[in-house]
């Protein structure tokens, strides 16, 4: 087994990671579509630390959640945990998903997305997909920040004339600037408040439309996140379709011995 993490001190290495540190690291991994940490979405089912090896189990709201986003979250979780001092290897497994075996086998063999889904993808690249959703998230965060400014009486044109430095400090402002940095957009106090998804300043006459679109993207992402939370809760509630205790020795391929009650 290779020693992947070299960032910590020898003492930290020797001690290995605490479960709390692993959870914190997993808290930096976001669902790319929903723009929320996988820990808050309750996608982390289980964390187990064994000296320098960490086992993480992830679960998703449905059996058929899109495999590309699932793969990104599993890979990101592994990267985040393996960056911790004292971690030699993180085994991240996806459970209860139609592509669990492709993803888990691909991950343990260090294969990329394309090689894990042989013949079903073009190359290994999921970065374009990630980038699209990072930019959608940027628009949603624009709405989150600006809706309060508009409610306070500023006009879209006013906002187009403002700089980041004129914003009162707030968690929403912080989230907004953080995303700009992530996308390599200008983020110093003198840079304009309103930028389009490619980082180009928004003209005052375009500001209303820009904020209108940002609102729609926000409604969409917020709604999807609510849907996913609801489905996960239903799926894993006692007696839910993801509750294996309720199924007993559940075998999805088993045929019933008596006929179904419906005819």
């Amino acid at each position: 087994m290779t020693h992947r993490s070299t960032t910590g001190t020898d003492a930290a290495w020797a001690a290995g990671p605490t479960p709390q540190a692993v959870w914190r690291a997993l808290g930096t991994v976001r669902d790319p579509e929903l723009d929320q940490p996988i820990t808050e979405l309750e996608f982390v089912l289980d964390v187990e630390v064994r000296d320098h090896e960490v086992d993480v189990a992830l679960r998703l709201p449905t059996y058929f959640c899109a495999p590309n986003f699932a793969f990104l979250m599993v890979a990101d979780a592994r990267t985040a945990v393996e960056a911790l001092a004292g971690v030699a290897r993180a085994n991240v497994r996806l459970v209860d998903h139609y592509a669990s075996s492709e993803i888990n086998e691909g991950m343990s063999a260090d294969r990329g997305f394309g090689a894990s889904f042989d013949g079903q993808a073009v190359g290994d690249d999921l970065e374009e997909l990630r980038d699209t959703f990072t930019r959608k998230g940027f628009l949603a965060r624009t709405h989150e920040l600006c809706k309060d400014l508009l409610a306070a009486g500023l006009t879209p044109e006013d906002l187009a004339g403002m700089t980041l430095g004129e914003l009162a400090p707030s968690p929403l402002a912080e989230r907004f600037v953080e995303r700009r940095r992530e996308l390599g957009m200008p983020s110093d106090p003198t840079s304009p408040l309103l930028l389009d998804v490619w980082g180009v300043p928004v003209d005052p006459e375009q500001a209303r439309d820009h904020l209108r679109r940002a609102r729609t993207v926000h409604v969409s992402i917020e709604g999807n996140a609510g849907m996913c939370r609801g489905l996960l809760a239903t799926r894993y509630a006692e007696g839910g379709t993801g509750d294996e205790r309720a199924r007993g020795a559940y075998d999805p391929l088993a045929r019933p011995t008596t006929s179904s009650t419906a005819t």
Partner: protein
Amino acid sequence: MYEKDGEKYFVVDGHVHFWDASPENQSNKYGRGFIDCFYDYHRNLSPEEWVWPIEKFEKYSEEDMIHDLFETGYVDKAVFQPTYLTDFYEEGFNTTERCAWMRDRHPDRFILNTSFDPREGENGLREFEQKVERHQPSGVKLYTAEWRGDSKGWKLSDPWSMRYLEKCEELGIRNVHVHKGPTIWPLNRDAFDVADVDDVATAFTELNFVVEHVGLPRLEDFCWIATQEKNVYGGLAVALPFIHSRPRYFAKIIGELLYWIGEDNILFGSDYGIWSPKWLVESLVDFDMPEDLVSEYGELTPDIKRKILGLNAAKLYDIEVPDDIPQPAEADDGTTDKPAVPQAMVTA
């Protein structure tokens, strides 16, 4: 027909199924997983008294369907939207043949759509033609995430798909319902992306494209294309049930849809058996836009509800509407004052 507070509503349920997902018909774990996934949608968004046991959900009867739609559910006409899933179910999930059987027993109640899969190429094209001749469907329902052997999906703008859409035009089939799912080829792409609807809506101006579930989970992408294309419509199945569990979110969705695509292009659909029309129709008629959202989105008037619940679909499917139902004029198109759509976000 539904009547409340002196207002009458003609009801066209634009999205119903008559499926068989019973264990006997499941081919593999995917068949089990698929119906379990539907069941979680059903349980998550239905009022408690509307939750069925899994056995009924897997395979409900003709009597159930007639009762829930027409005897108690206010539905005047219902449109079958077949979904094959022949890689998951021995006899298919909800095939044209299954739906045609029901339609033929209740011809005045159901409208039948069929389906095609462009990956079946030339042979499939002939079979499609025969199917249309045999069952006389009014439209097609396309599921782009359908698995077929190694293929996990297809795009509407694929060359063979274009051939099938040409065939639709030739055969006089005008309504094309599109449902996006979680997979596509190649898998790296966003499978839910609706950009291909834009391409075919521009190429086939004689066809109407109804994007089911209003593009969810890509509501925004759907809005961008539907605002530009007059022949693109949104089906409310999956979005409408939020009216019970998350009414504020429903208000925002319907508000965005009214803004971007307008009241003449939104269609009611229950997605039966996932949800039942009775509570959906009652809830929509009772629904008012929350006070603090009215300035952003406007009111949801009885005329708008009438269009959504039946009049818009009646136009698409040439359904005769009784004389005592008010028929409000089409809204001013209003596309001229809509924001230009960010092209990069559409195609990214």
